[in-house]
């Protein structure tokens, strides 16, 4: 049997986050706070993907995520999948889901919002979740909405 060469080495136990847009990989690492963790992490950018042409991937050893933890990156990487590995085998594959409420990771577009002026964690209600193009974030504090194309990550 022909053996597929792995560009990013396999992990024995841990989590693979696959099908990330290449330009989101560093942000994803930061949002999931993996840059401050002790777990070994391997990542790849601009890898070939049959489905998307170009993709990024992250593999973290000995680390598993709750869905709500990893859903924080769903706005950045809506097509991403989370794959749990145990003893080199895939034990579970889940697609990410955009949550109803997004806290902390996104900035409010309104410069006069309290969250952009004082140390207040942001909080948004996600509107039009089903229609990807019309997705908007409604700020819990200043009540302004941020359209999808204007979303900025902290």
């Amino acid at each position, binding site marked *: 049997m022909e053996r597929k060469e792995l560009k990013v080495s396999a992990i024995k136990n841990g989590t693979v986050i696959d099908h990330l847009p290449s330009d989101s990989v560093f942000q994803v690492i930061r949002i999931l706070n993996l840059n401050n963790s002790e777990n070994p992490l391997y990542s790849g950018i601009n890898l070939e993907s049959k489905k998307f042409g170009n993709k990024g991937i992250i593999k973290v050893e000995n680390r598993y995520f709750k869905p709500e933890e990893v859903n924080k990156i769903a706005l950045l990487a809506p097509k991403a999948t989370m794959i749990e590995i145990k003893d080199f085998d895939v034990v579970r594959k889940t697609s990410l889901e955009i949550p109803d409420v997004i806290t902390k990771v996104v900035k409010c577009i309104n410069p006069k919002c*309290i969250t952009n002026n*004082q140390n207040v964690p942001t909080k948004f209600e996600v509107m039009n979740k089903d229609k990807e193009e019309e997705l908007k974030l409604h700020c819990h504090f200043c009540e302004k909405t941020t359209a999808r194309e204007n979303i900025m990550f902290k």
Partner: protein
Amino acid sequence: MNNKSLISINDYSKEEIIQLLDRAEDFEKNPSQPLLKDHVIASLFFEPSTRTRLSFESAISRLSGKIVGFTDASSSSVKKGESLKDTILTVSNYSDLIVMRHPLDGSARWASEVANVPIINAGDGANQHPTQCLLDLFSIRKTQGTLDNLDLAFVGDLKYGRTVHSLVIAMTMFNTTFHLVSPTELKLPSAVKRYIKEKNLKYYQYTDLEEVIPNVDACYMTRIQRERFADPMEFERVKNSYVLTREMVDTSKDNFKVLHPLPRVNEISEDVDSSPKAYYFQQALNGVYIREALLTTILGV
């Protein structure tokens, strides 16, 4: 009311609003009642707002409550760099309820989440000013005898006027038909129109004021501010086209009333003041009754 704070008019149901208006009517008949004689109310004005502050202070005084606080941030610890959270936590210790005005959008919601006493939002930046909205509703009901099925005109700066946005959204609960009169640069934002559409109500947009007046039950005037225009020539062009004159008022229906959140500059001619259809000064007085109703309802006295 689950959360006792009042931050946004959208926090209240139609029933809760009507209960408040009914209570305000009682205070109109009997304004001085010592219901807050054992209460201390903090009044924190991080930016000055004379009318709103005096109206709250008058309401608290008529209820025999005590007031602590500051009237502008330069005379407070804010100047030393204290965060809003710290100010609110500290003042919560000294009072039973906090009335606050703050220049940043969303500040009042944040305060209500850190405070252990109720907050009344007296204006958070360009976002919400729910007590103004309540007094507007009270004034409309009082002059028309009902809030239901009215034709209301909103005139002037419909884009940035937060009192307009809140009042339009609140009136969508009462089957209103909206007549929106503004320069094209200052039309009502689509986010607010969405509320009207969701309730399947009608709205009409105009750039000419005169044609609207004979067909509406009341007219809510607002000030057009120079700083809203990138081109000063444009401001000069429109500023005199949205002035309500005595001649226009005389073409209106018998039940017609002129409302304005004040301060007025020139958008209502002074000769309208003597018309029985001018209601803006009584409207400001209604602010005291609605604030008495709100304070006593929130404090459960």
